[in-house]
């Protein structure tokens, strides 16, 4: 049953009252997640993701989509999230549909539907258009805005970097591709935890990042690979100025001062598009490797540092789905300076080889 927006809270209260009679569920909600579905074919996927998120993290979800029409209106449907059809309720599920020019009213109405006094997170589902006023207005209302650059082209890193700089005083900004990189970052950092590893940092010469490209991708690096190298370059205080690129059909090589970074395509169907398959680091006589095995959930971590042996390790890793990444993102709804800096530097490093944007997003 579609409701007018002023009836939504009443209906939710009624559903919880009904729930109190059938189960011992306590109503705990820690934030509102607004999923803005930018393309209609993504609606089912987004619905599935918010349902999974609500099972892991108690929240109110507002799934917002829009269709063309001459009659501007926003209406809603309301239900409760449940871990299973018989399970006790674990959050409010609101779907809103804007028709025609009512899309413009979504920001204020999303805020109206948000839980009072609790953080609001906006997840932009799908590719980010070069410029969209709705995105910026939502960012003003939100505490955290999440995108997924796994679905974007390499050139979009620059767009994201501009957006992140633009919204940084209004909300935190995050990227699911960045969240996915955490495991790799953790494993890279491990190489340099002890004195023998740290010794090598200064003499770092070569980094190779192998990744599985998206279907039909022509870019030399995936957004994840670009972000990963941006993070490394940021940690090592490298600069993007004067970067020199060479490229072949399935590889690209950037020279930044005395460091060479090589990006290599290696298509695999058993990992999400853009995923990192191998990271190798070479320093004066030492070598550090992380390599995804035939089983994509297993990484081999090995280090050869003269005089400081460490046995190689096989490490089981999750290949998180979008919902899992989003939950991790929501656990820390605050500005992530490391991401902002890595994105900024990474996007500048890859700029020479990423097809330019027709126009960069306009300022707020």
């Amino acid at each position, binding site marked *: 049953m579609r409701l007018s927006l002023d009836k939504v809270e009443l209906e939710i209260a009624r559903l919880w009252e009904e729930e109190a009679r059938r189960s011992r569920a306590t109503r705990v909600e820690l934030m509102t997640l607004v999923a803005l579905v930018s393309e209609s074919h993504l609606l089912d996927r987004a619905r599935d993701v918010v349902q999974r998120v609500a099972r892991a993290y108690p929240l109110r979800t507002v799934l917002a989509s829009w269709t063309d029409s001459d009659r501007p209106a926003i209406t809603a449907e309301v239900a409760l999230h449940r871990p299973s059809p018989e399970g006790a309720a674990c959050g409010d599920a609101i779907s809103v549909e804007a028709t025609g020019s009512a899309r413009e009213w979504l920001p204020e109405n999303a805020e109206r539907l948000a839980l009072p006094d609790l953080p609001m997170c906006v997840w932009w589902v799908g590719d980010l258009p070069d410029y969209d006023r709705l995105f910026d207005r939502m960012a003003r209302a939100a505490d955290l805005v999440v995108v997924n650059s796994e679905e974007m082209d390499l050139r979009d890193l620059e767009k994201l970097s501009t957006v992140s700089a633009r919204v940084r005083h209004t909300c935190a900004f995050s990227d699911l591709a960045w969240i996915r990189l955490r495991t790799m970052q953790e494993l890279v950092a491990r190489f340099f935890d002890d004195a023998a590893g740290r010794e090598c940092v200064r003499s770092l010469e070569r980094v190779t990042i192998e990744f599985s490209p998206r279907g039909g991708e022509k870019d030399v690096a995936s957004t994840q690979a670009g972000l990963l190298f941006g993070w490394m370059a940021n940690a090592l205080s490298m600069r993007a100025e004067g970067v020199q690129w060479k490229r072949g059909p399935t590889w690209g090589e950037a020279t930044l001062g005395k460091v060479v970074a090589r990006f290599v395509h290696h298509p695999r169907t058993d990992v999400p598009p853009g995923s990192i398959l191998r990271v190798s680091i070479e320093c004066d006589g030492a070598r550090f490797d992380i390599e995804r095995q035939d089983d994509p959930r297993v990484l081999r971590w090995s280090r050869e540092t003269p005089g400081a042996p460490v*046995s190689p390790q096989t*490490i089981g890793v999750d290949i998180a789905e979008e919902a899992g990444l989003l939950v991790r993102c929501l656990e820390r709804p605050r500005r992530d300076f490391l991401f902002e800096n890595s994105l900024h530097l990474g996007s500048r490093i890859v700029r020479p080889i990423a097809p330019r944007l027709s126009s960069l997003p306009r300022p707020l």
Partner: protein
Amino acid sequence: MTTDNPFRVGLETERIPDACVFVIFGASGDLTRRKLVPALYNLAASRLLPPGMSIVGFALTETTEEQFRQSMRDAVGQFSRRKPIDEAVWGDFVSRLHYVSGRFEEPASYTRLREKLEFLDKTNGTRGNRIYYLAIPPSVFRTVNDNLAAAGMVAEEGGRYARVVIEKPFGRDLASAEALNTDLHKVLQEKQIFRIDHYLGKETVQNIVALRFGNAIFEPLWNRNHIDHVQITAAEDIGVEGRGKFYEEAGASRDIVQNHLLQLLMVTAMEPPVAFTADEVRDEKVKVLRALKPIRGDDVKRLTVRGQYGPGNFAGQPVPGYRQEPNVSERSTVETFVAMRLEMDNWRFAGVPIYVRAGKRLAKRCTEISVHFKNVPHALLTQGAPGPGADGSRIEPDVLAIRIQPDEGITLRFAAKVPGPSMVLRPVTMDFRYGSAFGGSGPEAYERLILDALLGDPTLFARADEVTAAWRLMTPILQEWEREHLADLPIYPAGTWGPPAAFELIERDGRAWRRL
């Protein structure tokens, strides 16, 4: 510990321990199987163990490394919070596991152990760093420490560390606790000693600190002006569960009151530390114990109650009494229940009674701290709830309850108006449950504590002066009980809330135990 790795800056895990060899003394024992190895496995699964770290089991039993690894796999399968075993994690974890058999009293065993550890240093880059986890009976603590020192295995030289983790009991009374500390300090510095009290590793206990010092609204009320009294309960519904022999030596006071219960009290009553660092926190905690009024002589009878469970029921099924349990004497006078009325002599809490109780075979399993606030100064409005206040003369005071287990959470009880034309109030509760708010299962206490020991952070471990201060409170009580006649030990039926004297203890002050 890592501080200057540029790749760690800003990552979620900013602290990773330096690689070491983790040696478990008593590796064939119960604690190793049920807690230590499952906790280490879970740390490995969370990728919190440093690469190169090895785990070496050491015990009397002759067994091959292969058999040891297999038995640890069974233990992980049975006791780990993550099920089933993740083969990729296990594959790496098992390659870290080693075993050496030996006798704690025999110096030659230490030579063998040392050779093994040095071999692992060479192959794995652990550079002489050691954690010795003593999962062993207290009777051999001293032997093991002396032999480790004699073999030169605890010296911290050339930047390497050697830490010794010990399990309770830390003595049986003040004299033996002081003797144990003296023995330990002969061969180790205090900073090398990590005394485990697993209650401090519990998320909910750490949350007391978060509640008090991470919020501005509670601390202004956290004093004698607003608090009427505090209750701390650690109730178990099970009996001694086959641990009769151990319990005959310990009793509830040594098993739980002297350590866990007093730790809860310290965290509840301590002043805000200047910083959340090991010594600052522990300085404040120990001040709480020092401020507790000693209970001696005749006061013991007045302010403490002990009891022992007799036959009764557990969840509606008949169960035997303590004296009928295996390995328990038929005439045992060991207490399975303790209640005490404590008071602190300090500026913040002077005159605020703290009622504590702990026991086995009580009506329900529940560990909880409840802070009972003073009543409104003037009964302007009337109470409509059933119970003693139903005559309209009294409003039930507000209570903040912090549940440690099970169903971890915080409840605030306050008065609200009953809907209707008249101004009648009723107590209602506002509930926060960890499970619903954060979902999933957090790390177990042993995981947190082992990680902290690896990182060399002793904040959540008991310091020598904490242990002796706790014994200073408990020892005169235990001595007085020993002098009392056997017939004075009250027996309570299993499945009830302890002997009637426990109710009298609080009711004579015009108060009552909170219903749990």
